[in-house]
């Protein structure tokens, strides 16, 4: 099934490559939906926030400085730690092959790149200077992993959907993950207020790689639904205020692990964003 999806995206890429350009003809200005090809986009959010850590003795992650970096070529792009190749770039639908880091490592290592990206200068100093939070059991490394696979997104009258089917490709757990989310605009005025619901499915291989204890706790696959609210208010050229709150529920396959203390992850951030 997974190979079939990859083949489909590659076929779409081949077909699209024959076209003179992507069908992004509705994009004629730098905006919320469109971006300049060949330009680095850097923004920095400075504010106050926190992401809870569900691990036993896990330290919550303060969010103070949140950098965002992206670069879009004609088809290739870098979106923070994700990279992608867009086969079809249409007004309503987009089809890409992406690679994205495994998410759960952030709870085990403060120095994980995904944490560096959301906390360059928190009160506890630079990320990496802080030792990993004590995880009593099991004490074993969780390596940096990358997942890759096709991503389909759509924009239907402002309702944005995302569907990723990913497989771990760095050889550490060989697991699969499906990421889905749909975002609804609540307010279409200058102040953008949106709500998103999503669901992450992780195979048993991924769940056990992070939360399993060999011989003590071994689980099956897990579902992780989430709800996200986001508010954005432009303040002037290059500046905006943003508030984000997200609640993610962890399935019992994860929450029942002996190293997990909470069956949820809460993230909140309020701050000012400057786009350079």
């Amino acid at each position, binding site marked *: 099934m997974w190979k079939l999806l990859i083949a489909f995206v590659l076929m779409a890429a081949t077909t699209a490559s024959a076209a003179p350009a992507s069908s992004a003809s509705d994009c004629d200005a730098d905006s919320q939906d469109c971006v300049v090809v060949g330009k680095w986009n850097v923004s920095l959010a400075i504010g106050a926030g926190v992401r809870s850590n569900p691990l036993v003795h896990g330290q919550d992650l303060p969010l103070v400085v949140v950098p965002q970096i992206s670069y879009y070529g004609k088809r290739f792009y870098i979106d923070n730690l994700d990279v992608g190749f867009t086969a079809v770039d249409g007004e309503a639908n*987009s089809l890409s092959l992406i690679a994205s880091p495994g998410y759960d490592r952030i709870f085990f290592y403060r120095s994980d790149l995904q944490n560096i990206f959301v906390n360059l200068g928190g009160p506890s100093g630079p990320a990496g200077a802080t030792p990993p939070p004590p995880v009593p059991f099991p004490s074993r490394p969780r390596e940096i992993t990358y997942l890759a696979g096709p991503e389909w997104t759509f924009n239907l009258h402002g309702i944005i959907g995302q569907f990723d089917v990913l497989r771990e490709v760095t050889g550490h757990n060989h697991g699969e993950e499906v990421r889905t989310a*749909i975002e609804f605009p609540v307010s279409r005025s200058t102040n953008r207020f949106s709500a998103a619901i*999503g669901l992450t499915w992780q195979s048993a291989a991924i769940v056990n790689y992070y939360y399993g204890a060999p011989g003590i706790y071994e689980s099956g696959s897990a579902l992780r639904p989430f709800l996200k609210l986001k508010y954005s208010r432009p303040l002037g050229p290059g500046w905006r205020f943003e508030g*984000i709150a997200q609640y993610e529920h962890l399935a019992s396959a994860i929450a029942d692990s002996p190293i997990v203390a909470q069956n949820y992850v809460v993230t909140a951030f309020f701050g000012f964003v400057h786009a350079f």
Partner: protein
Amino acid sequence: MRFSLGSRAGRCTAILVTALLTAGMGETGSEIQLKLRPRVCTLAANETQCSTTVHADWHSPREESLCLVILGRSDVKRCWEHYSQGTYSIELVFSDDLLFELKDARLETVLASQALRIIREAIRYRHRRRDPWNIFQ
């Protein structure tokens, strides 16, 4: 059909010759030659202004008293008295085409002119990735 093609080719040749003559002799057709380096400034997609050092050279078969000016830029003016050639270099920051003119000492008659043109790289856009799964997007 062949006549039509020949006629079109003739018109193209005439335009080309006219353009070459104008470029070589300046607007007025005088014998004073003005050359600019560079003649074109190319802006990248994320740039709005050209910033470069422009070198202007002029030559004349006779001694002349004249001034080099830039149209619309009264701050730039360099004059020579009884010279048959001259050079002038200046650092400029500009966002539109510049027209360099050699005028007589009274600044009444244009003896030669050259344009320094700006070429803007075509800016292309594409859709930003839609990633509602990501907390910060």
